[in-house]
């Protein structure tokens, strides 16, 4: 009786092992880097904040030509939060954003929102923002690699993006991810 060469008999096992090992390596890489726990990790992590002018909202003055001055936040640890009054998850995260504002300054970016609606939203849920920028066209969001609202970024004192969370900032994420990063980076 003719017997198969050993390599042929082991071939399925070799292919199977190869697939298992490659999948294992990929999963290990995801587990190793804490920022990659969120599968929507930003491409901008570790990079400087996008150099783009953002018009500052001032709901008392109709036409405000001032821009949000990100340079004011140089050497500061702060957050950037994209939000909108029409976004339901933004309402869910509002109390947590409020808590975050007690620890670090937050720049809010009102994404595709009518100023009157943004004002109503802030009157209803409180204004946790140090400054509010306006993104009517969605271009600023694209510069930041945003998928949709809400999204939150943490910026270190060197002006680098060190964390991004896509979706509402919930208490468990706030406690397990955001607070430890702030503690380890804030002097």
């Amino acid at each position, binding site marked *: 009786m*003719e017997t198969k060469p050993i390599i042929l008999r082991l071939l399925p096992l070799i292919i199977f092992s190869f697939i298992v090992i490659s999948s294992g390596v990929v999963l290990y890489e995801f587990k190793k880097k804490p920022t990659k726990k969120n599968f929507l990790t930003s*491409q901008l992590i570790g990079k400087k904040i996008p150099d783009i002018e953002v018009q500052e909202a001032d709901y008392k003055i109709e036409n405000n030509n001032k821009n949000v001055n990100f340079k004011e936040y140089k050497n500061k640890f702060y957050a950037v939060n994209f939000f909108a009054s029409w976004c339901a998850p933004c309402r869910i995260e509002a109390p947590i954003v409020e808590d975050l504002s007690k620890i670090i300054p937050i720049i809010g970016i009102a994404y595709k929102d009518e100023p009157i609606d943004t004002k109503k939203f802030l009157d209803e849920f409180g204004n946790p923002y140090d400054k509010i920028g306006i993104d009517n066209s*969605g271009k600023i969001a*694209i510069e930041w690699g945003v998928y*949709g609202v809400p999204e939150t970024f943490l910026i270190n004192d060197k002006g680098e993006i060190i964390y991004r969370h896509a979706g509402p900032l919930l208490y468990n994420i706030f406690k397990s991810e955001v607070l430890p990063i702030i503690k380890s980076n804030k002097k």
Partner: protein
Amino acid sequence: MKKIYVNLSLLSFFLIIISHLTLASEIISKTSLITNKTREIAQNIKCLVCQNQSIDESNSELAKDLKNLIKEKLEAGLNEDEVYNFLSERYGDSILLKPPLNTNTILLWFLPFIILVFSSIYITKFFKK
């Protein structure tokens, strides 16, 4: 003398008309070129908030914004590669429907071929027996 003036005026009038028409046709052809290029690029960009759609096929807000931005970038003089780079710098290579070949994607590109070759050898040998 008067006739020469009339002729010269007519000539300049026609020259102005012709130059305006040439300019208009150039603008139209440039606009349609950019529109076509925008569509071509949009067909290779994945809609990040939809499933299995390019931004060309999608009507989502993000897809619309990305299409507008691609058009603006092309109008500003960026070439195709620069537009792709701009997008992958912000959203990663996963935004490209044809991911580039690099160390991160080498398995993605070659694993199917490796499996195909080994499986073919195995199946051939198995049925030959």
